[in-house]
């Protein structure tokens, strides 16, 4: 293993740990948008796909890369749009100066 590879393992472990800490704080309220969001973010495979499709690695690699770009880009575009669409639906109760609306926080924690 090279030094770079060791550092890559560090990056992986630390990022996984960050992910664990952040995700455990996401309330069940937003678990579906969370899945849609991670789905969109997994479109990051695009980065690898683009290099494969555009580098001169031969025709087979170009075709594989092209299909991969299409798949990953579909996830990116569709994933971020649908996450945004869902999150746009989550609204607080309108604070009409009603008599007994002190319920407040609730699922919003």
């Amino acid at each position, binding site marked *: 293993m090279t030094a770079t590879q060791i550092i890559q393992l560090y990056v992986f472990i630390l990022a996984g740990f960050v*992910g664990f800490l952040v995700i455990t704080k996401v309330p069940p309220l937003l678990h579906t948008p969370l899945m849609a969001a991670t789905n969109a973010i997994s479109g990051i495979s695009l980065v690898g796909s683009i290099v494969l499709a*555009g580098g001169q690695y031969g025709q087979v690699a170009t075709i594989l890369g092209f299909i991969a770009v299409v798949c990953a*880009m579909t996830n990116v575009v569709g994933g971020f749009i649908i996450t945004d669409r869902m999150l746009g639906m989550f609204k607080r109760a309108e604070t009409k100066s009603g008599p007994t609306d002190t319920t407040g926080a609730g*699922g919003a924690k």
Partner: protein
Amino acid sequence: MSFLLLIAGLPTAAAAAYLLATSPTGASLDAIGGRELVVQLTYLASSVLFILGLRSLTKPDEARRGMQLAALGMVFAIVGTLLNSEILTYSWIVGGLVLGTVLGYPLGKFVPMTAMPQRIAFSHMFGALAATLVGVGEYYHGIQVPEATGIERFKMAAIGFEVLFGALTVTGSFMAFGKLQEFITGKPITYPGQNIFNLSLFAAAFGCFVWLIFNPENTAVFYAMLAIGFAIGILMVMPIGGADMPVVVSLLNSYAGLAASATGFAINNDVLIIAGALDGASGFILSIIMSKAMNRSFGNVIFGAFGSATTASGKTSEGLVAKSISAEDAAVQLAYAGRVVFVPGYGMAVAQAQHQVRELAELIEKNGGEVKYAIHPVAGRMPGHMNVLLAEANVPYDKMYDMEEINDQFAETDVAVVIGANDVVNPAAKNDESSPIYGMPILNVYEARSIIVLKRGMNPGFAGIENELFFDEKTNMLFGDAKSSLTKLVSEVKTL
């Protein structure tokens, strides 16, 4: 407080590690040149934006903006990659990006919220396919072209992992998609010796994986492993019932992330490693939460073939009579109630009755009552699905309560209205050790002062278990289709 600091500190630590890791491939520590520096800085920016985006999901008010930042992060990553000096021709890339946009737009814009679980499963398939193809391409480039320079062990391990996990996620997600969309039977498909067969396939795949690390040039073994990966995905999901799909979809989410991470190791790209690790963690946590809420162990979901179980033991309803109630009487009860909790189940979503529920809730509030929604983790077909369905019907999110938040409040609830939910409110989970759902966390609806259950008929729930809640003397059954019952309730309350 220190915990908060820890959370703030970790991304910084990860970022620092990232900076260290951005030395050019080949582990030399020379300074990075201009273009490469720009590329790496865009990747750094997008990694940070992804983390901030996911973190924004902890606060519903900030979530939308945060995810827009994450989308910006993705734009950075794409732009950064396009600057990569290895890229010589752009025609295929641009074609792919355009086609992907054309396909992705309708998948984001027009898919109904009820179809969200299959939509997510479907796109896991796409994500995993991209990772798999990149892996195959890397392998092909490293081994099979005439000028190939071979692949060293660490990289081969990364590619092997990527291709194996990618392949089984592709077909597994397709199966999950099929079961949720119901063009593949939702019933578990089982045959004798299934688990042993599946496990030996796993063993074979693992064998290929190890073999390849030491003999990367053995192309037959590589493609055999790819094929086995595809087969495992199909065979693994086949025996899992439709109702268990939330766990499967979450787990595949995790696998898709891990495959992306492995891609990052294979092509020396840190933003892939980071984003993949985030996704992997997310899917893993969600699948654990879901299996807990279903009272199942992880292993039991994967190897158990639950839905086929004919263990409808537990108490029977013989000699018990459920009281039924008319819509008029139920309306009176609701109209003058002080505290009302709605308990929606998947039946409500199937009947598309969310809007009627919200309308009824607004009427009760107008009369001075207080309305809350109690949401069990498995109320929908995927984690958090019910919340989205209610939000779509304009139910404010601060009135939706998780199981833990609301369970203590049922005792002070005047009327609990159960709509199309069954097993998640079955007290047998608490007090009947012989029941198959014993130990499953439930909503404590039975503690409410009175209960109205909207139900089509007296059929037992999905797990095939009688629900003694329906025979409780505090319970009144309002029979009929959820949507028309609710419509009737709304018009009755209006006339009061």
